[in-house]
């Protein structure tokens, strides 16, 4: 299959490339950028005039809901949703049912994903067996089976001794541990940020300290153990400042935030909108401002969707009883563009947060668009507006706080390894 992508605005955030030209794809790779070689005979030509051609997105948190939660969403539906969002590589957390704590489960997931022949799925292995926070999983074997890192997903470790041992063990092999920092005692019973809005609505609060205490603990243990840690879904200004200092000190730490936390705050909870029940909770306006700044200055390495399809039954309950999480893999790109526009950030810098920078955390070469490289591409119409509605989302999960929003930026084509896997 040879594809000729004609006259698109080629943007590669990693290299700084930003110019109009042609891209030729053959045998899964980019074989020419700029002008089409005279002898290139395409089977398909994509007219990309007025469109942006960029590396496919890399999303660090997409729940595919398999195995175990197929009633919510399936690998097929969520991978299609990812393709529709221009995502070509994704990391999936281990909070499936059962959790990804055995090589067999990881191999099955990779096998199923490969058979669907769509995008690159990078599983995160469970850090502890059954995510119970007690016994380590066979990390080295899981790594060999394809896990790119190890995580407790949304079941943060309570036992700090287990935390320290797991960091030591991971450091032995040079694995990255992905942790969502949360002190479970301080967060206990809470469903919203402990602040003005939760006070008003009478929702049990999760104080900022639940995150900062955990981040401080993790950073101190990183110094002790030399382990590499990726902090997932930071939500507080203080935690971002701690990461800034830790990076300055040279600790091997990275972090990400979700699109929800980049754009929303506790003020958006309105009248108990269950779509805004998230973990970590949406925090104050000040925290949101710190997230915006941290992502722009590189303290925060990546922007992810934290894609969590939840069925309606689990959302049609009183706020505190609803299952937290939002669907978002199809919104990652438009919301990154919106952030760039609102913050006056160069387009390429914003796009780096969803391409090359998260790829760096995965330790993969994806998220780039270079001559000779894998043809994982996203072709988007940056001008097109569309409305977020249940019908406009391919994901089985329709739960998003952005429902009803008009967003700009529509994916027209997604190519994975040189194959068109999605076309609008």
């Amino acid at each position, binding site marked *: 299959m040879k594809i000729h992508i004609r006259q698109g605005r080629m943007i590669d955030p990693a290299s700084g490339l930003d110019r109009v030209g042609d891209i030729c794809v053959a045998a899964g790779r980019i074989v020419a950028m700029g002008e089409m070689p005279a002898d290139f005979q395409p089977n398909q030509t994509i007219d990309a005039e007025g469109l942006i051609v960029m590396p496919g997105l890399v999303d660090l948190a997409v729940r595919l809901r398999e195995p175990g939660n197929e009633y919510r969403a399936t690998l097929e539906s969520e991978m299609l949703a990812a393709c529709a969002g221009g995502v070509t590589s994704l990391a999936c957390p281990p909070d499936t049912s059962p959790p990804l704590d055995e090589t067999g489960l990881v191999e099955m997931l990779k096998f199923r994903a490969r058979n669907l022949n769509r995008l690159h799925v990078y599983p995160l292995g469970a850090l502890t067996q059954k995510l119970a926070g007690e016994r380590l999983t066979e990390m080295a074997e899981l790594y060999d089976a394809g896990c790119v890192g190890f995580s407790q997903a949304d079941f943060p470790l309570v036992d700090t001794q287990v935390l320290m041992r797991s960091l030591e063990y991971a450091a032995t092999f040079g694995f990255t541990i992905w942790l969502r920092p949360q002190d479970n005692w301080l967060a206990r019973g809470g469903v919203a940020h402990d602040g003005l809005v939760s006070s008003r609505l*009478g929702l049990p609060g999760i104080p900022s300290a639940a995150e900062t205490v955990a981040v401080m603990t993790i950073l101190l243990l990183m110094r002790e153990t030399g382990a590499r840690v990726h902090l997932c879904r930071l939500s507080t200004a203080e935690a971002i400042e701690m990461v800034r200092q830790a990076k300055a000190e040279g600790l091997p730490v990275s972090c990400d935030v979700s699109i929800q936390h980049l754009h929303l705050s506790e003020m958006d909870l309105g009248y108990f909108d269950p779509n805004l029940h998230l973990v970590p909770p949406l925090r104050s306006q000040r925290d949101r401002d710190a997230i915006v700044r941290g992502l722009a200055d590189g303290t925060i390495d990546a922007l992810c969707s934290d894609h969590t399809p939840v069925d309606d039954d689990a959302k049609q309950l009183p*706020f505190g009883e609803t299952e937290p999480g939002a669907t978002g893999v199809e919104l990652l790109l438009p919301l990154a563009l919106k952030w760039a526009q609102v913050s006056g950030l160069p387009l390429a810098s914003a796009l780096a947060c969803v391409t090359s920078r998260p790829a760096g955390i995965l330790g993969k070469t994806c998220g780039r668009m270079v001559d000779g490289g894998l043809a994982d591409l996203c072709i988007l119409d940056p001008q097109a507006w569309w409305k977020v509605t249940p019908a406009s989302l391919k994901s089985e999960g329709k739960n998003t706080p952005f429902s009803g929003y008009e967003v700009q930026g529509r994916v027209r084509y997604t190519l994975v390894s040189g194959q068109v896997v999605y076309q609008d």
Partner: protein
Amino acid sequence: MSENPQLNADGSLRHLLTIDGLPSSLLTRILDTAEGFVAVNDQEVRKVPLLRGKAIFNLFFEPSTRTRTTFEIAAKRLSADVINLNISASSQSKGETLLDTVDNLSAMQADMFVVRHAQSGAAHMIARHVAPHIHVINAGDGRHAHPTQGLLDMFTIRRYKGEFHNLCVAIVGDVLHSRVARSQIHALTTLGVPEVRVIAPRTLLPVGISQMGVQVFHDLAQGLKGVDVVIILRLQNERMRGARLPSPQEYFRYYGLTPQKLAHAKPDAIVMHPGPMNRGIEIDSAVADGQQSVILPQVTYGIAVRMAVMSMLAGN
């Protein structure tokens, strides 16, 4: 989802879910209407035919004999048909969801739901879900709101103090977990009470409470100085011993309302309590049964206020 879910497009009340966000004119109208219903209690036949043929479902997902009874009496005095449903958490967990229950009852031609639930926001969720002709009254949701209690407290204050704009009101106790306190604070500030105080140890106050327009005190004697109205909140049993409070004895010693502490308030100050009381923990019997206590009138007025709310909603 940003528009106020309890108001119709013309600004009239469709549901009563919280006092937060309701205009002062509407609160005053409810209180004025309730005055009319107080007289009904003097009738030989303590009943008016307003809601004849209407079906009101008391949906209590959290046990409360007292509140349910006052709603039941109010509905019956309006000649409505009242159906009480006490739905324990256990029967819910057998499978039928909250909204299934609501749908089923709606199919039985319900006109109004009075909802009590342990989760904040439960009444809002039901109100979002029901058909347009059905009205929802929040009879207490989690820590969020208990608007009819807040209104009956305002009614009581107005009866004893005449007006709001020259008052100093102190709310004492577990504000953090109290839906009653939240509704009172919104009602008092909306009706123009210039000084609303909360008095409690820091473990019983929500974050940012001062931004709700109240002054914070930690010392009971200081906080009561010169107040016209003292509202004592109930301290739940399970909160008397733990990480928030060491013991009921220590609580009573520092925050219990005794005649000595009450002496710091104005001589004609009234004492209120939403009930049920823990005598000897948040309030001394000498105060609860004393001259300044208006705790029993609160209960009586509660019926008139609930009749007013029910008839206003049913007519809108």
